[in-house]
């Protein structure tokens, strides 16, 4: 187990290092006019040169990279070009929003996906099964921006027009400002995200539940006269959930850098939206910082999933 962990963490660090090289190379190969933008219209060549010097942009690329890497190892991701705010601080401010979005949606899509999956699996090929599969695929097919706009149209615009101002048009209200407004601002984004992701979980739960319900020990449980609901939930669901847990970890890790669209549509200033703004401004340290952070989230989630797998399923041995 310890050896497995060390190797996985080593791989993770290697992956992150490769990503940092790639992102760095990409942006330094591309023509940059950040210094020009910062100097403004009246910027003289001297001012531009000075700005370049201050940002370290006059050094050779490899020196800039080593400088970045040296600091990154110490947990310092540099400062943003425009306001000289530490990138770690920017990430720290955006992260709670993205995490609120991801976790809240996760609760919804897990509940929806697992519930529908179990119903489908216990009534295979029934009308309910077909209906739920169709329901899941329908929302799975939705481009996230379209679903977001649709929710905004009906639940914000239409509802507010009819005198029910239950949902805001977008934006974020921190938890510190009360749980009510926080919930109100996040409910629509949660629904939008959860409906998209629930499909995968419905299918996963249905598939693995069907497999498990065909096992001998389920028949044994039934023949002992245990109530069907108990057989399904306690005996069946428990072992059927392993692939669901795996997928859940992977999805959660990817959502940290993957909710760009939902954040844009609902004007949530999370990591995704911050990154998009930084990309538009060529704010390199912020872009690299967020891309690396989001990649790290995926790497960590994958390691946790492997460990979780071993904990959930005693037959799995890590080596």
């Amino acid at each position, binding site marked *: 187990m310890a050896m497995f962990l060390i190797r996985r963490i080593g791989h993770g660090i290697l992956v992150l290092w490769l990503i940092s090289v790639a992102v760095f190379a990409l942006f330094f190969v591309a023509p940059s006019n950040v210094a020009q933008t910062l100097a403004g219209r009246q910027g003289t060549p001297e001012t531009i040169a000075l700005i370049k010097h201050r940002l370290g942009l006059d050094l050779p690329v490899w020196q800039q990279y080593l400088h970045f890497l040296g600091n990154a190892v110490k947990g310092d991701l540099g400062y943003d070009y425009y306001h000289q705010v530490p990138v770690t601080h920017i990430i720290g401010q955006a992260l709670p929003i993205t995490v609120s979005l991801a976790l809240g949606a996760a609760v919804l899509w897990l509940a929806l996906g697992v519930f529908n999956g179990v119903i489908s699996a216990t009534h295979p090929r029934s009308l309910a099964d077909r209906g739920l*599969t169709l329901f899941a*695929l329908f929302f*799975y*097919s939705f*481009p996230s*921006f*379209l679903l977001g706009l649709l929710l905004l149209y009906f639940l914000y615009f239409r509802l507010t027009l009819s005198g029910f101002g239950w949902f805001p048009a977008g934006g974020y209200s921190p938890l510190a400002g009360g749980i009510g407004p926080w919930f109100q601002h996040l409910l629509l984004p949660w629904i939008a995200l959860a409906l998209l992701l629930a499909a995968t979980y419905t299918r996963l739960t249905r598939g693995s539940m069907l497999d498990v319900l065909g096992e001998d020990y389920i028949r044994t449980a039934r023949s002992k006269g245990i109530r069907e609901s108990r057989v399904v939930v306690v005996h069946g669901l428990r072992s059927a959930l392993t692939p669901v847990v795996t997928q859940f970890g992977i999805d959660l890790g990817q959502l940290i850098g993957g909710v760009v669209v939902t954040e844009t549509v609902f004007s949530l200033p999370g990591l*995704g939206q911050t990154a*998009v703004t930084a990309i538009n401004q060529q704010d390199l340290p912020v872009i690299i910082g967020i*891309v690396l952070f989001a990649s790290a989230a995926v790497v960590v989630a994958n390691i946790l999933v492997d460990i979780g797998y071993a904990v959930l399923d005693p037959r799995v041995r890590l080596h």
Partner: protein
Amino acid sequence: MTAAIEMVDVLEEPKAIEGRSPFSLALRRLRKDKVAMISLAVIVLIVLMAILAPVFAAVTGHPPNEQYRDLGLTPDGLPRGPNGTFWLGTDDLGRDVLVRIAYGARISLLVGVIATAITVVIGVVLGLAAGFLGGITDTILARLIDVVLSVPFLLVAIALVSVTGPSLTVTVLVIGCFSWASVARIVRGQVLSLREREFVEAARSLGAGDRRIMFVDVLPNVIAPVIVYTTLLIPVVIVTQATLSFLGLGLPPPTPDWGGMISESQNYYTTAWWFILFPGLALLVTTLAFNLFGDGVRDAFDPRADRT
């Protein structure tokens, strides 16, 4: 004589039971799947719409990028709803929504098919190489797969497009270069167990080289999961392209594409429902049809799904 021939016919009757490959069995199952067949029909209709886009323009008399400032806009400069001249209404610049949707289908399908093809080719070749050759090749490729799968795809795609400037080629390449890893992982996993099988040993003892064994002997055995994955990848690619367009990183205007149209319609969704509804519907129907069809393909290839 005649009797003899008849005899032969009777004797040959049992031959009607022919050996069927798993592929033809899957095809038979697929043909019996009503939902999949309806979806396929819808896909064919969308393809026809894309091919016949100029016909839409000719029949309505509205080229896709022509701005009808007087005819197509209200006196206040707002889009006009569906009417006799503009069947699905006009957009914010007075252009015909119907004709633009038809032309937009070309972009979606083109990107969907080409990017998926690139993805699958790279994924299959690298997955085969990693799984079959093993050793240092596998180590490097497996790490590369990890890297690509760990990168926040959409963020890096946006960053790439913003660096290079938006174009059809860039969109296709970005999608292709980032999506191959999942295909490669699936293929690699399959090949790792296939290469230990007897038929590989047999081929090698007959003097076949690595490349021949990989592509002639092993590849046909991983084709089923690849087909399933490919059909389910097309809608994902179409959505990704639309998403990039929606974020302003699709095709440079005035090229009509669905994601871009939806993005343009955002400011009008309270006043001009048709402007967002019809492009949105086109996109949704397309992805839904591909997903339902892909679902059918998956069931058809699933050996456990015997519907007796």
